[in-house]
């Protein structure tokens, strides 16, 4: 039981990172972006490419960092992947979603996002193949934190949790202490009013995509560090990330963080009583329960 709880917290850390970008984009652009989880795939595969590239160009970067399976090359790749994924998100919005937004309605955007998800997933499959990839093929040994009850944690998982919490705290500081953060929150709450107070809406929308894409990339890489990366990882993660967003309340960054941990923990604790094959149904059931009992989620607000 305690092992499932710890595993759930670790899963929650990257679900939260993925849900932050989704909740921001959903709130500001007012559409359910089903291609958001594909940004995690883009980030994960970008990191894979850069990791291999840096390892071959600079062999010194192939050395592992302490007890982690992560190398120096991958650490640098994370930063580059964040930038490229953020930029990809901006370009997807500029060339696809923005055009649909100007001509169509919210439902058109939802269908466009479904189409975009399929396109990204298939391009990745075409380029990298359908087989799973790993950042490190070495066996990562788990640390025994407790023998009774047995509690095992890999160093990579501890790193993932700490790094995710640091990123979330950094985002909290930006949103609560900087004028840029106030502008982002202002646009989310009332775009027209934000504009008349001098906030450039287009720049803020681009910023939302960059932040969402960047955090999505980290989430994808952390997922890859914990499990493996496949072209269909976006498909597997879209439901838990949506569940985290809806549980937390659409538009609430803090809600997305809490929602991610709740969904991660609930999905893992369900394994105590359910066969593992039923585990993916837990986020779906959580979405249904929240929409029935508290449609605005934990921190969301009703909006017109």
């Amino acid at each position, binding site marked *: 039981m305690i092992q499932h709880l710890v595993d759930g917290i670790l899963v929650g850390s990257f679900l939260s990172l993925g849900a932050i970008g989704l909740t921001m984009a959903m709130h500001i652009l007012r559409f359910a972006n089903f291609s958001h989880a594909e940004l995690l795939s883009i980030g994960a595969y970008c990191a894979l490419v850069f990791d291999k590239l840096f390892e071959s160009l600079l062999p010194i970067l192939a050395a592992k960092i302490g007890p982690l399976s992560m190398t120096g090359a991958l650490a640098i790749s994370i930063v580059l992947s964040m930038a490229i994924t953020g930029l990809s998100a901006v370009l997807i919005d500029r060339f696809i979603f923005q055009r649909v937004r100007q001509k169509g309605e919210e439902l058109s955007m939802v269908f466009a996002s479904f189409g975009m998800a399929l396109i990204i997933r298939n391009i990745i499959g075409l380029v990298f193949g359908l087989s799973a990839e790993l950042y490190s093929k070495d066996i990562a040994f788990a640390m025994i934190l407790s023998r009774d009850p047995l509690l095992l944690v890999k160093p990579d998982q501890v790193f993932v949790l700490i790094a995710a919490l640091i990123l979330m705290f950094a985002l909290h500081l930006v949103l609560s202490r900087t*004028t840029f953060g*106030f*502008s982002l*929150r*202002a646009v989310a*709450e*009332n775009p*027209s*009013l*934000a*504009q*008349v*107070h*001098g*906030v*450039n*809406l287009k720049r803020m929308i681009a910023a939302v995509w960059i932040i969402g894409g960047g955090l999505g990339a980290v989430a994808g890489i952390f997922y890859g560090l914990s499990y493996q990366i496949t072209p269909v990882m976006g498909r597997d993660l879209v439901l838990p990330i949506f569940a985290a967003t809806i549980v937390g309340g659409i538009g609430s960054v803090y809600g997305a963080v809490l929602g991610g941990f709740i969904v991660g923990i609930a999905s893992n604790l369900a394994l105590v009583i359910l066969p593992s094959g039923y585990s993916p149904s837990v986020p779906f059931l959580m979405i249904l329960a929240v929409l029935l009992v508290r449609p605005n989620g934990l921190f969301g607000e009703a909006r017109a």
Partner: protein
Amino acid sequence: MPDAVLSVENVTAGYVPDLPILRDVSVTAEREKLTVIIGPNGAGKSTLIKAVVGLLSVSRGGITANSQDITGLSPDRMTSAGIAYVPQTDNVFRTLTIRQNLDLALQKHAHASERLSELYKRFPVLADKQRDKAGSLSGGQRQFLAVAMALAADPVLILMDEPSAGLSPKAAEEVLDHAKQLTSFGVTILLVEQNVKQALKRADHCYVLAEGRNQIDGPATDLLQDPALGRIYLGGERRVSA
């Protein structure tokens, strides 16, 4: 010729193309005066203000503010043009604190901290509650915060959309008094109001709109005495026929 800060000339505008709400409307706001626009519901008063600040596109006519053509200027460039806007509802960011609301409005000000101190001096209630969320303020306090945010960027012209709507009579009078006071600090005010009697008592000039068109305009004191206006808007001789 009077010194006009805002000149709206024969403007046609609406929410949907080819379905204008305003038709050939012309309004002038003179420097350091309080100009009020009144009219029945659906007259196009709020639409006019939204068209001025760029939230609606103007299909015909032109708008000049401070000797600058602002027709079609995007709303985020209005503060740079010296224009501030206080919407009727949702005029503050409820999820931000009072301080964060003001910091946002001050973001392009060269001397933001000095300006913030001035605003706190003018609205002491905001200084006392600066860490509170704007959503927790009373209606009157929220309106003062909205006015403070509008004043933050040292505007030449403030457009206010029914600032007394939903307020108690006392709070409404305070807000309108404050709007009038602002003119003595060099700010020009263009006000849309349903509270006709109170607005006319404080205004210098008044425009009456109906069905998206100019009806009459003149000095506010003259219109206050006008029996026809009284019948329509002030309820003086209004009768309900059986």
